[in-house]
């Protein structure tokens, strides 16, 4: 007697969110990115088709990074000298969108200039993240949001300390927000409620539940993401948002990725280990429901993309 495959009967579904706006939609993007729409746990095609595969973003900075691993610096070479050349190189490396990460040193004018440069260099959708200090983020992102009105940028980091300002400017200028909360299901949900209460349409919210790299707390991020996704499928409207994870940021700040000398021989080849660390972190979080993965190394982009293609076929 054939065995019947048990299928979960979920009532909820992740919202579909589109980043970037074409000329017809009031922006200048030649391509847009759509994520979300899942009605089951990741890639279980026997239950439901996966309408939109995870998207890979490459992280670029408004000015050359000073604390990045030499492996990354060497890989990107001269391209990091300005955001436009970096964006072009990242697109050539397979990026489906960019995250332009601003720095504490940027003035609002410089931030705006960097955003314009990236928008001019590529037709891909763009996320713009502030340096992570609420006041500075507000100062930079408001200027950027106004200058790029109508582009459907993804603005971050939008957290409990500054969501009012970021959401207000996203509302006024036709952008999206990346809602970040510190590895906790209830805090994530609470922030989403606060943001939607301000009137931002729910299809303009991505949530960033925060994660740790392999060996540095990935299990917390992993389980929080699984729980958020299960809660979304069970019908909780305030968790039904696609998830973004800053894999590159987390993986490349580890000693495993950053340091090549004076580490145990059992850590193996530095270059390979650093890239494996980013890919291992990315693949684990993809299985937990990540929709947008922000990566740093071209080799990771290539391999994770191939893995996603394989996950999308059954």
């Amino acid at each position: 007697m054939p065995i019947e495959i048990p299928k979960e009967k979920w009532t909820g579904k992740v919202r579909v969110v589109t980043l970037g706006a074409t000329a017809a939609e009031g922006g200048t993007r030649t391509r847009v990115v759509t994520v979300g729409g899942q009605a089951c746990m990741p890639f279980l095609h026997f239950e439901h088709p996966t309408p939109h595969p995870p998207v890979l973003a490459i992280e670029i900075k408004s000015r050359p990074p000073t604390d990045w691993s030499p492996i990354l610096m060497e890989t990107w070479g001269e391209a990091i000298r300005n955001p436009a050349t970096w964006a072009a190189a990242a697109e050539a490396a397979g990026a489906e969108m960019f995250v332009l990460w601003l720095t504490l040193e940027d003035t609002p004018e410089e931030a705006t200039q960097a955003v314009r440069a990236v928008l001019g260099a590529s037709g891909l959708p763009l996320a713009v993240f502030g340096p992570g200090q609420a006041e500075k983020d507000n100062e930079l992102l408001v200027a950027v949001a106004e200058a790029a009105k109508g582009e459907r940028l993804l603005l971050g980091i939008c957290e409990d300390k500054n969501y009012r300002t970021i959401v207000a400017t996203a509302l006024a200028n036709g952008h999206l927000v990346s809602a970040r909360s510190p590895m906790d299901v209830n805090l994530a949900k609470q922030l989403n409620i606060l943001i939607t209460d301000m009137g931002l349409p729910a299809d303009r919210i991505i949530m960033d539940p925060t994660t740790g790299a392999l060996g540095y707390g990935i299990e917390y991020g992993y389980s929080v993401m699984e729980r958020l996704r299960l809660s979304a499928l069970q019908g909780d409207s305030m968790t039904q948002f696609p998830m973004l994870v800053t894999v590159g940021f987390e993986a490349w700040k580890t000693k495993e990725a950053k340091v090549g000398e004076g580490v145990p021989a059992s850590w193996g080849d530095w270059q390979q280990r650093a890239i494996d660390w980013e890919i291992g972190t990315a693949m684990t979080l993809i299985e937990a429901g990540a929709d947008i993965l922000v990566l740093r190394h071209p080799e990771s982009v290539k391999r994770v993309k191939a893995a996603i293609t394989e996950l999308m076929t059954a």
Partner: protein
Amino acid sequence: MALSGIQIYKLLPQTNCKECGFPTCLAFAMKLAAKQVELSACPYVTEENKAQLAESSAPPIRLITLTGGAGKGAGGEVKAGNEVVMYRHEKTFYNKPGLFIRVQSAESVAAAEAYKVNYVGMDLTIDGFALEADSPTAMAETVQAVRAVTKRPLILISQNPEVLQAGVSQLPGEKPLLCGADASNWENMAALAKTCGCPLTVRAESIDGLADLTEKIKAKGVEDLVLDPMTAHLGKSLALYTQLRRLALKNTRSVGYPILSFACNATDELAAASQAIAKYAGFIVLSEFRPELLYALLVLRENIYTDPQKPIQVQPGIYEINAPKPESPVLVTTNFSITYFAVANEVEGAGLPAWLVVCDAEGMSVLTAWAAGKFDAERIAKAIRGFDVASKVSKKRVVLPGHVAVLSGELEAELPDWEIRVGPREAVDLPAFMKQALN
């Protein structure tokens, strides 16, 4: 099928004798249904009912143990099975999937055998080796060569029972995994497994194919089985492994066995092995010994198999960061692994030497531990004295996490000859603080 608490209750003596440690038979029945107690705690249940209960209370995924040349105990055994949930946050994952390296050459076995990597104070190693041969003589020779170097448990691979027999005969007293039975050879394989008492894999592309084989082999008296769903394709294996785990947890006995993953056959071995670790494999075969890949996988396995109710703790003690000197600063934090790593990483990444004193705060973060009374002046002082920090430094100055600034007065009372400084709240601000405020 699993019985409900009420169904179990009907099979119990219903005398409420309390000898099991519970106030009523019903309470005991509920615990049995939740698989939180053993039936053996009840001295009065009848043999007949015991059999019925045992069948229903057997773990949904059979525990399979491979034994190597060192016998039972540390490093000598690999266990898989006995899992009870789909998602780790629902309870925990219990038996870490064994990582086996495919034998390519004698040198690679020696290197893999010697491999050891330290992660949060634990030494992680591989679990065993998988070897394949095409003739009985070749198998016997390979097994001998491998056993000259390592005693770890083995997986023997051949479609031919005679070849496996030749391998097993070289391994007296051991329980290697025989790999394995398929639709064409299962009768002879079952006979071999029965004779030698070793666990056996069954290989088929579909769930029906696997269930058909396990039922036929079980009927021959072999119960220690492992499923080999024959795919290392990321999409297919995720679906298949998920279905198998679901069916097993719903007490479909014919697939209630651990899964063997040949990640070595995947397009991307890291991607496949990471998936196998997070998504339900019991044994994983890797193509070769590659330290950086192994390190990543061993760490991922620790992370995923950490009990979510009990966070990984770092051993309390004094940690040296960037080869500190006597004049280097002394920092204090708790033994919650993420807290420790946040602090250690920032300081290490900034290239600043420091002594990091990790207090036993029962694995809680700074604020949580402080609120729970597990990170107070008394405990910090005890750590500073207990680890004899004073003997290592020339400047008796200790930096408290900013979140517990309120402890500085009490700590001054506890450590009168020490200067107490309040550092930043977040680890990320430590390097700037150390550069500006500690000179």
